[in-house]
């Protein structure tokens, strides 16, 4: 990986987007085990229905992990100072998330980014921001 240099980054610069595979029930089961989030609402249809839902839905932290991949594909992880997201819509089974990032500003070598995860129908599932050290 060649990390971006400060000179190559300016407001408006977009990170290479990350398109992941559609989320299957197997993805949800594996992520439940790997992440330690065993909340059955993501993996057990009976529990989801008992809560009045039609189906299980993806763990929000799965999409946040994909956003983390977007960032660490772009810079080595130790340059990431902080980041955060709002989970604004649920991600249904079989949805295919795309992670995007855009530089808002660069000040004293610190880049402020806006982040999004979107679905093919335009739904924004996660909206967030990050601060990356480019010095």
């Amino acid at each position, binding site marked *: *990986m060649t990390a971006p240099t400060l000179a190559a980054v300016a407001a408006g610069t977009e990170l290479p987007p990350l398109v*992941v*595979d559609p989320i299957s029930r197997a*993805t949800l089961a*594996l*992520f439940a*085990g*790997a*992440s*330690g*989030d*065993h*909340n059955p*609402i993501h993996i057990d249809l009976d*529990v989801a229905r*008992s*809560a009045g839902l039609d189906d299980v839905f993806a*763990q*929000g*932290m*799965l999409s*946040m*992990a*994909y*956003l*983390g*991949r977007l*960032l*660490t*594909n772009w810079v*080595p*992880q*130790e340059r*990431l*100072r*902080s*980041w*955060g*997201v*709002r*989970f604004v819509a649920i991600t249904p089974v079989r949805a295919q998330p795309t992670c995007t990032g855009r530089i808002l500003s660069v000040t004293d070598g610190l880049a402020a980014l806006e982040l999004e995860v979107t679905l093919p129908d335009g739904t924004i599932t996660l909206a*967030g921001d990050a601060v990356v050290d480019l010095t």
Partner: protein
Amino acid sequence: MAVDACKALAYRFEPLVVTAERGRLAFFARATGQADPVYADLAAAKAAGHPDLPIPPSFYFSLELGRPDPFGWLAALDVDLRRVLHGEQSFAYHASAHAGDVLTLTSRITDVAVKKGGALELLTKKTGVTRDGQPIAEAVSVIVVRYPAAGR
């Protein structure tokens, strides 16, 4: 039934001492489609200058779920897990951490807010991560509890 704010703010989490296991991090990489071998292959991690597999950015949330009863604090506050949504999550970092590091996680609930006439309640939980007393990271979670019947 809404969460008792006084009870929530006074809730005491036992400090959690936890080690990120290498195999677990490799499993997390696989489960999240991570193609960068630094996160799953020890030789690749070492070639990139890491002493072991790095703990990925969002994994501190998972470390905290290593408690024997990770949702016990919600049960203690009489929250039905089926009514819970993850509203927000953020992380800030002070130093890198890797597989094998012994980390101490200290959590507390810092805010309880009622929204939409009682239809939603927002619990903010902050977790500090340290290694040998030195700060590694902070994680902040906002948990949303839904009370559909209260919505107006």
